[in-house]
C-alpha cells in the first residue's frame, strides 16, 4: 500500500529531532538524583503539554550524569521551542531549591556530549 504524504502530513519517521542539554541549578542541586529529576520532568511535561502534546513531541530521555547533574533529552524539531519554553516555567523540583536550566540545543547528540564534558 502506498501512502500519499503530499497533503502536508509529515512522514513520522522523517521528523527532524533536536537534542537538548540541561543542568540542575540551585543550592540544593546535589540532593536531587536522576530518578527524582526525571520524575519531576515527566510530571511537569505532562502538565504543560498534555498527552497529545507529549506524543507530538516524541520526548525521549537519554542521559543523566549523576556527578555533573547534567542530562540530555531528545524532542522533535517542531515541538522543541514549545517544550523548552515550558521548561523555563517549571519552577523548583519537589519544593527544593533546585531547578532545571537549559544549556544548549543541537541537532546531534555527539556535539552535546562533547559540550557536556567541557561545560
Amino acid at each position, binding site marked *: 500500500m502506498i501512502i500519499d504524504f503530499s497533503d502536508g502530513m509529515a512522514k513520522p519517521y522523517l521528523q527532524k529531532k533536536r537534542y537538548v542539554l540541561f543542568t540542575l541549578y540551585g*543550592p540544593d542541586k546535589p540532593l536531587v538524583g536522576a530518578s527524582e529529576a526525571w520524575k519531576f520532568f515527566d510530571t511537569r511535561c505532562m502538565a504543560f503539554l498534555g498527552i497529545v502534546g507529549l506524543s507530538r513531541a516524541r520526548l525521549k530521555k537519554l542521559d543523566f550524569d549523576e556527578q555533573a547533574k547534567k542530562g540530555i533529552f531528545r524532542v522533535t524539531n517542531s515541538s522543541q521551542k514549545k517544550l523548552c519554553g515550558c521548561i*523555563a516555567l517549571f*519552577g523548583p523540583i519537589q519544593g527544593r531549591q533546585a531547578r532545571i536550566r537549559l544549556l544548549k540545543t543541537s541537532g546531534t547528540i555527539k556535539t552535546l556530549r562533547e559540550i557536556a564534558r567541557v561545560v
Partner: protein
Amino acid sequence: MEAYDISIVHVGNIGSLGFAKAYKLENVKNRTYRAKNAAQLGSIAKKPLVFFLDSFELDLPAIREVAKSGGAFAFPASYFSVPGEPPHFVAQKLGMARQFAKLCLKYGARIVLCSLSQNEFQCLSAHELVLFAQLFGIPEQVAKASLKLPKLYFE
C-alpha cells in the same frame, strides 16, 4: 546579545545568565507602574512607563494608549511559574497573556520580558526568556529586542 533583566532581589552572578545588568524593581519604581489589569491604568497609560499587570485581561483602549505613548507591558516569568499552582490556572494565565501579547504586537505596544525573580535561583537566563516569550507567540527577533528595552526605560 545585549540583555537586561528586572528582578525583585539583587542577583549577583548575572553575567553567567547572559545579562549585562539586572535592575532591581525597587530602584526603578519611578519608571514602572503596577496595576491590577490594563483597564485600571486610566490616564497613567499616557506616560512612557513599564507597566506590570496582575492580570492580563484584555483592554484594547489601554493597549492602544500605551502603544501611542511609547510605554511597555512587562511579561514577568515568575507570574506564570508559581510553585504548587494547579496546571489549569497556569493554562488560563498563559491563554490570557497570549491574547494580550498578540494585541500588543498588532498595535505596536512594547513588551518587556523579565524574570522578576524573588530569589537568585529563580532567575531565568536570557536564552530561557526568549524561549518563554515564544509560548506567547512572540517572534524570536522581537523577544531578543525586548530584552534590551529595560535599559531604554531605566537609564
